[in-house]
């Protein structure tokens, strides 16, 4: 009888403690759900940025094929690419392209099937010590102004997490 009376006196305290627990659990759930949404939208943004980056690189006059070329879509001028790579090797110049190309490493590889040779060129390296690197690759045409030939090429872009 005394135990029951003691329990009765503790009733309001128990209710407050239980309410606090419920509020805590609900808050935890809300925070975790928000975190999961953030991760999903970050992934979507990352994919969009990879596509935007490929478009940007190919539409740059610094790299794109001469305006007189008939096929200009997804076409990179090999001689311009070499000049750009020389320019971008200078940290000061590379810094100017950082807002556009960001924390990334861009490699261009092209094959001259008639000569049986493959050539690789590091266009831009702003990756530094970035972690969580994602990679995307796409096929391009490289215009060689020396031979006046169009060659098969692959553009590989490694992007570091922001």
């Amino acid at each position, binding site marked *: 009888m005394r135990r029951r009376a003691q329990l009765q006196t503790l009733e309001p*305290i128990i209710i407050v403690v239980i309410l606090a627990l419920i509020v805590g659990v609900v808050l935890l759930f809300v925070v975790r759900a928000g975190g999961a949404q953030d991760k999903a939208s970050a992934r979507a943004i990352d994919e969009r940025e990879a596509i935007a980056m490929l478009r940007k690189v190919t*539409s740059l006059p610094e790299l794109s094929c*001469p305006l007189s070329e008939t096929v200009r879509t997804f076409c990179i001028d090999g001689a311009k690419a070499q*000049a750009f790579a020389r*320019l971008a090797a200078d940290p000061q110049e590379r810094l*100017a392209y950082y807002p556009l190309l960001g924390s990334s490493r861009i490699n261009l590889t092209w094959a001259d099937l008639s000569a049986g040779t493959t050539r690789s060129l590091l266009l831009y390296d702003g990756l530094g010590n970035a972690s969580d690197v994602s990679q995307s690759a796409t096929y391009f045409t490289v215009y060689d102004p020396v031979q006046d030939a169009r060659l098969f090429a692959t553009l590989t872009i490694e992007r570091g997490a922001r």
Partner: protein
Amino acid sequence: MQTRGQLESSFQWIFVLIAGGAFLFLTVVLFRSCTQHGEAAASGAVAGDLASQLESLAWQQETYANASAEGVRFSCVGDVLTVSSGDASSPIGEASVFLPPEMHGTLRMATRQLSLSAQGSPEIALGSALYGVDDGTYYLVLRDAGTDPVDLEGIFGLSANIVSLDAADVSDPAKLAARVPQTARAVVLVSPTTAYVANAGISRLPPGAALRAVVISSGQAQFYDTQGDTMRAIARMPAEDPMLALGAAVSSSPDAYACARSRLIDRARRLTRIYELRAASLSREPSLSQCATALNDTSALLAQIDAKNGTDYLGAVLGAERTLSSMQSSLRSRSCPVIA
């Protein structure tokens, strides 16, 4: 015994009230901080998203896009164009972007390429610039016989907030005021002469609207701001090319124009440096020996232009347009690699 029981009961209620009050207070504080954080994050996201969208578009050629946002400001902070929304701001790095000082609703954007093309030769691209017009800003472009008007309609098409007027109409303030809705937030008068700005009858234009004017003539852009009922000249800057004249009209602010202009010059300089290196390396190719002299001459001219300092560079490259274009035509006719 009864008094002790009453005391215990009172203590329990006091505890419940204090503990309940504390929980309520904590919940309110947590909720408010979450909301404020959300608002700050939203402002930051608006500024950041818009800056990255503008930057991404500005490097592309001949694109059109719209962006919607409320209460966004564009200003030049330490030589960098910056997008601000609420307390958050985000820089638009190296891209050349000509924008009005504020945006209230929809920003219509288009990019155009600065290029050299004389004598019908293939164009030599010198980088692109993005132009944006806010639907809440009214652009009154005055046409005057004998001058080339700023071609805003050529880029953005016919729309309610871009109005071309005969310059003679500004002498009739009622005619001018009739073309601008009284709800306009900002009015920009793009004029070919200073006299038209003086006669614009600004007291008849929307009283609450921000009024600005840009006089574009002889490769110069003169910026005006309102002071009471009069327009006051605040700056004069070079606008050597129709693309830059358009940029001055759109931005209508000397600082924002200077920011975008200097980015455009930096970009053009990098491009001519690449063309110079390309021409020099191709001139050394044994299989292109028949083109060596022409390519060497091209490389030397580009090196000469690149050696000019920041303010002289644009004048030098635009001044050499005919020579570079004829070099481009000559290289093409001889089946040599062109400049760009």
